[in-house]
Every structure is written in structure tokens, then in C-alpha cells.
């Protein structure tokens, strides 16, 4: 499902701008990339459609640590690229997780090489795990996850990743390991960062611009033999945004 957002006058104006040829946009003093970025919703204004308010706080805080802002390069962080919106929209999509074979019995102790043997859809996994992590941080730090310091958040995420001292079974959920939730969250975060902007993340194609991926250009007959020459053109998106 594509990004759902309320139609606003601003969006209408930007939609009209996007429909113009690049040369006209330049005359108006705005690049296609800027227009595309402006067309995406502001994370702060976004109302989640899958997550509850407290779950949303967790997702904002966790994705911000998984792909943080700043650093030595020009790559943006998860919040600057609307990754939480991507995850919220995907989990709201009926097809997301509908492909999984969920007939029992479940052997939740099967070796990792046997793959997904969890009696949950991804949606159920998020709901269950966020509750347990917040429960654990309340007990340990007397705070919800999103209220922790940066260092504490990273330490908790590391525990979740490694099943180290944060045991979902001990918290009452034997069918799910913390690390299994971490894998799902990290994969969804990276997908939101690098997917086409029409899914709600990768705002303004900024992740693609930073790494040098040309997006949906998909035509390189003249380029395949140009060896070790940096490709000169910026990305295009499936809906025709250019940068």
C-alpha cells in the first residue's frame, strides 16, 4: 500500500509543482528533489495508523538509534527519512505478513537454520515485543524505552539483539525471542530507509542520494561499458521524482 496521508492545500500545491517539467521548476526556484521532499509528510505531524501512541514513541526512539542522524558522511538518519512512517504503513497493509504459513504446531525451539517458526504475524510480534521491552526498561530503569538516554537505548537494543539479559520468556512470552523481534525491526528499518519513497520512507530519496543509487532509472545500455566512472545522474523515483 502506498503512503496514505490527508490531502492538504500544501500537498495539492506540491503535487502541481511535481507535475511540471524540471525546467519550469527551476524557474520557480525549487528543484524536483526539494519539491518531492516537501510533498512528504512531516514526521512530527504524522498520526500513526497501526501503532498506538506509546508504541509509536518506541518506534521513533528505536529507529533513531538503528540509523542515527549525523556522523561523518552526508547520509541522513531514519527519522529524517520518515522510516517510522514506512513501518507504520507497512504493518497496516493487509498483505504484510499474509504470505507466512502459520498453521501449527510450532516448534519455537527449532534451530535458527529452520527459519521462522514463530506463532505470530509480524504485527503481533511488534505489539508483543514493544510491550515487553517497555516493561523491562520500566523495571530496570523506571522509564519507558523512549525516555532512556542515548547510551541506555543502545545498551537495551544490544541486549535485544543478542538475547542478553532481556529474556522475553522470563517476561511471560516463551514463543518469541528478543533477537527475533530485533531482526524484524532492523530489516523493516533498513527497508524503509532504502525503499522507493512511495512507501513512505526514504524521504526526498535522501538515502539513495547519499549512497549514489540511481533508483528507478533502469536503463544503462550506454553505461555498462563505462568502467570505473562514477554514474553522474541522481536518482528518480517510481512516481517520477528526480534529484
Amino acid at each position, binding site marked *: 500500500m502506498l503512503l496514505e496521508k490527508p490531502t492538504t492545500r500544501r500537498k495539492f500545491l506540491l503535487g502541481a509543482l511535481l507535475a511540471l517539467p524540471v525546467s519550469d521548476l527551476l524557474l520557480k526556484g525549487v528543484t524536483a528533489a526539494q519539491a518531492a521532499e516537501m510533498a512528504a509528510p512531516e514526521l512530527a505531524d504524522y498520526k500513526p495508523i497501526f501503532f498506538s501512541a506509546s508504541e509509536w514513541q518506541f518506534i521513533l526512539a528505536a529507529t533513531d538509534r538503528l540509523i542515527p542522524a549525523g556522523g561523518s558522511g552526508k547520509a541522513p538518519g531514519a527519522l529524517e527519512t520518515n522510516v517510522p512512517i514506512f513501518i507504520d504503513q507497512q504493518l497496516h497493509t493487509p498483505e504484510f505478513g499474509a*504470505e*507466512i504459513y502459520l498453521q501449527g504446531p510450532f516448534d519455537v525451539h527449532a534451530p535458527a*537454520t529452520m*527459519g521462522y517458526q514463530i506463532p505470530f504475524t509480524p504485527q503481533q510480534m511488534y505489539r508483543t515485543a514493544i510491550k515487553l521491552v517497555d516493561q523491562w526498561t520500566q523495571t530496570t530503569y523506571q522509564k519507558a524505552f523512549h525516555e532512556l538516554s542515548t547510551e541506555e537505548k543502545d545498551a537495551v537494543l544490544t541486549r535485544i539483539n543478542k538475547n542478553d539479559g532481556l529474556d522475553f520468556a522470563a517476561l511471560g512470552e516463551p514463543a518469541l525471542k528478543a533477537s527475533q523481534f530485533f531482526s524484524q525491526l532492523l530489516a523493516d528499518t533498513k527497508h524503509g530507509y532504502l525503499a522507493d519513497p512511495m512507501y513512505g520512507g526514504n524521504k526526498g530519496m535522501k538515502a539513495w542520494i547519499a549512497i549514489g543509487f540511481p533508483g528507478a532509472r*533502469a536503463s544503462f545500455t550506454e553505461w*555498462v561499458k563505462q568502467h570505473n*566512472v562514477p554514474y553522474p545522474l541522481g536518482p528518480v523515483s517510481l512516481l517520477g521524482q528526480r534529484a
Partner: protein
Amino acid sequence: MAQITKKEVDVVVCGLGWAGSLMSIELALAGLEVRALERGGERDYPDFAYPKPADEYAYNVRNKVFATPKEVAVTVRYNMDQTALPTRKWGAFAPGTGVGGAGMHWTAVLIRPTPTDIKLKTYVDQAYKPGILQDDMRVMDFPFSWEEIEPYFYKFELICGQSGTTGNLRGQILEGGDPFEGPRSEPYPLPALDDTLNNVMFKEAAKKLGYHPFPNPSACVSRAWKNPYGNQIAPCNYCGYCSKYPCLNYSKASPQTAVMDALKRLPNFSYEVNAEVVKVVLHEDGKTAKGVIYYDVDGNEVFQPAKIVVLSSFQLYNVRLMLLSGIGKPYNPITEEGVVGRNYAFLSNGGATLFFKDKNFNSYATAGATGQMFNDISPGNFDGPGLGFLGGAKIHSSQATGTPMAAALPKGTPAWGMGYKEGLEQWYNHSMKISITTTCQSYRDIYLDLDPHYTDHRGNPLLRMTFNWKENELKLQQHLKGIVGDIAKELNPDSMSMSFLPMGADFDITKYVSTHNVGGAVMGDNPKTSALNKYLQSWDVHNVFVPGGNAFPQNFQANPTDTIGAITLMAAQAIKEQYLKNPGPLVQA
């Protein structure tokens, strides 16, 4: 829901991928009334107009054009004593669905096995002293000679517009091609695809070390092509969205581009989508089939009578349908009696990823089949007997895509946090791969049967796979690790990581290898050890033909599609020339 009986047709084809579409067009061109039933949906080119397929998330992550585990999971266990567990998500392999099947979104490496590969048992008996190989190995010869099958390889390659460099033309070895290939009666129809930077680097290093690299034979066509059915295929534009994607440029030979347009114009051909065949119905004596039962899109149970039944679903589901229908005796791994389910095999992969700070590979500018490979390490071309294992590999520089979610990062790069983000920005587009695609032998206790616990949405048992790596395959991996490591050193990267199976490794169903599952209903000369004869005809039910990878008695290092096309076309020829005149077993055992 209603029960419906359709009018009898000459041929009912169950599954409309490569095997089903080839069988359909060949038999329809011969004048037979052919009706195809496809479990998945319609897939036609307007669905794949640019830029729709240029969507890594939808196609590569969400598997938009694949069958879902919810519909067609299988169960997996490592040995006969375990309880198998279902493939709840796809991992090591991912079957296709819909019109075109996996042929619509394949990588399009269109390569033949070698003459040794098709006579592997004969090679083993000549080259290996008794006792060198594991005693539970059960490799077999394919039941045809190189000379018999070669015209059908060539016919399928013309259908696909195969692009590549000829290495052996009627016995003459030609520079730039594969000197180990079997003699070709005609050169490749089209020249090879262009090489990317990583391929040039790999090719030079491999040559320097004494190997014989050649361009990957490709069904992404290098030039405009009109095939024998009159279908036109456009030159590849190296869009970078190929393996797991439908082609946005009409450039990848697929049932759609190469067969369906001509097939749909034949008035004696019809097809139905969302038609799930659940059983082949046999006459009371069990010697012939009456037709098939399927569920249509509205959930009606439909009986389609037919004089000939073709099972052309994916390998796993052909075997399952035979087991569910009682065609051929199920294999028993203890007594080794029975034939349906035996000689299942998969394949392994692995390789090295090399990182170069100062090289821009632009790896998103590629065809799926773009690459160089060498065949020096395939059976008969190196000292396998001295090393104590049977098998080999294509060693290649294929890099089917450069999309960012699949980007490799150097060893030690964190999986998340600032280190991950900076690593991605620094290293994206600066790596190349050297990969292996291996053989996999067949064994007494590696097989397929029906699962006793898990069922599909209709309550029918799932197919159960008993499979794990054997010592022979892991020894092969160790040998290949050395060869790949030497080539990597020759290329002198800033850093590199290696990925090979260690001795003792278990089959990991979570990591994608390839959907080259083979065997389970194999072709052979002996009805006691094969389900099908050389014309893919059931030994037991003579009007049932089962084209597909299921017919391979073990897996060779070559990609399977060229051979699936060739054996299907050979079977179609036998049906037209022999079976129609005299319906009955085409081979007397």
C-alpha cells in the same frame, strides 16, 4: 460450490511456466486441442511496463511475483528420525507462480550441462576406484546421449535468443568460449552481453591463474531477436532489475516473451488461471489417467477430462501431485523400493566479496545473467577422484543486481547504528563478488514424501523434504574455497569476506541459494529406479508426462533451465511422432 465437468480435450497441461508453455505450443502446433491450467494469476506485459518493476522492495523483499508459503509451503527435516517443520517464509529457495512461472522472473543464465554431467554414473564408474565415494550416493546417468539431446538444446536456445560465445563448434575449440562445453551443432544464436568492470577484473585474474573464463550464456538477449515461433525479444538495456523481477524491457526470454504471444493466437489452445489442480484421476486399472480435478477461481470443483495429462508445475509440486494422485510407487528410503520422491537434490552456493575503495562498480547497471564464469572445476575437468569427492562448480563473477538493500558491507561493519550508516555510504557500489554454483549429488536417504502433520488450506498434506548436506558436498566447498581465495588474492582488494560451508554445516533454509531444486520424479532407463522414461512419460501411467527439474537424477553445476527446455521439447517431439500414433509406453523396459 458446484461440481463441474468440462468437455474432454486432447491435452491438459497443469502449470504454465517454461515446461507447460513449451509443451502447450508444440502440441497445439501439431493440431491437438490443448488446455492449460495455471494455479496462479494472469501475468502479462502491461503489468510490467516501466517503471513498475524497478521496485526493490516489492519484488525482491516482498516477493511480489512468487508463490507464498501460505499457499505452497513444504516441510523440511535433516534426517529420517526428525519431525519436519514448514517453510513458513521462503529462504533457501522461492518457487514462482502465475503465467510464466519462475520463467518470468528468472536470472536467465541459459547454459548446458557437459556431456560428462549427463553421463555422471558412467564417469564415476570409470574414474573412481570403489570405496572412494560415500556408499549412500545414488547418482545416475540421464537416459539419453549428447547427440540425441543436442538438437533440443539448440531448439530451446533459438526460442530464447541465447547470447554467448561459442567454445566448441562440432568439436573445434574456439577462443573466448568454454573449451569444456559439449560440441555444439551451431554457434550461439547471438553474441554475448557486454561485460561490466567486475567481470573484466575476474576474467583477467582467472586467465592469469590458468582457468578458461567465458561470458555467462544468457537469455537476456544482447541483440533484437525474432524466435522460431515468431515472437520478438528486445535487446537488453542492463536495467539492473532482473533476478526476481519481471523484465520491464521485453528483453528476457520468458514464457511471455518467447512463447505465449504465439501460443495465445492458436485457436486450439486455451488456458485458465487461478485453477488449482489437486489430483490426476486414473482409470480403474491405474494404467491411464482420465483427466484432472481442479478448483477454479470461484471455488468450484472442476473435472477436466483429457487424453494426455502433462504435469508441468514446479519440481516440488509435480512430485507432490504424483504422490497425491497415486502415479508411480512412493519411494521408501529403507528398502529403496518405489520411485516417486527418490533422488531429490538441491545445490549450494558461496563465494568471496571483495571491497575496493577506488573502484565504482555501478553494479546496478547489469543484466541478471551478466557475468563471466569458468567450467574448469566441473566433473571430469579436474582431479575429483584424487580429492575424494564427486562434483564441481561454475565459478563466476555474476552480480545480478546492485540494488541497495542487497549491498554487501566489509567484515566488521556494524549491522546497525552510526557504523552501519557510515559503512553503507562508504562502501555501497565498491564491492564485487566471486561466486560458486555447485553440483549436488543424490543419496539414499535424501528424498521427498508427503508430510504426516502439516497440510495446505484444502487439508492435503504438504510435501516433505528430507535433506541435509553430505560430506561429499562439504568437501567440494572446501576445495572451492581455496580456488576462489586464490582468485581474490590475485585481485588484491582492500578487504574481503569469504562465505563457504564448513564441514559439518547443516542446510540453512533461511539463506537464499537458488530455486534449482531437482529430482524426486527422475528420468531413467530402469522403472525400478526412475519414475519417468527418457520422454518424461510415467512408467506406470503412460498418458501422464512430467516435464521439469523433477526429472534430473542429481544436480549438475549448470543452471537447470536449458536442460528443462531441451528435455521438454524432446518429450513433445516423441508425443507428436510416436505417442499419438500408438498410445502406450514409449520405452519398453
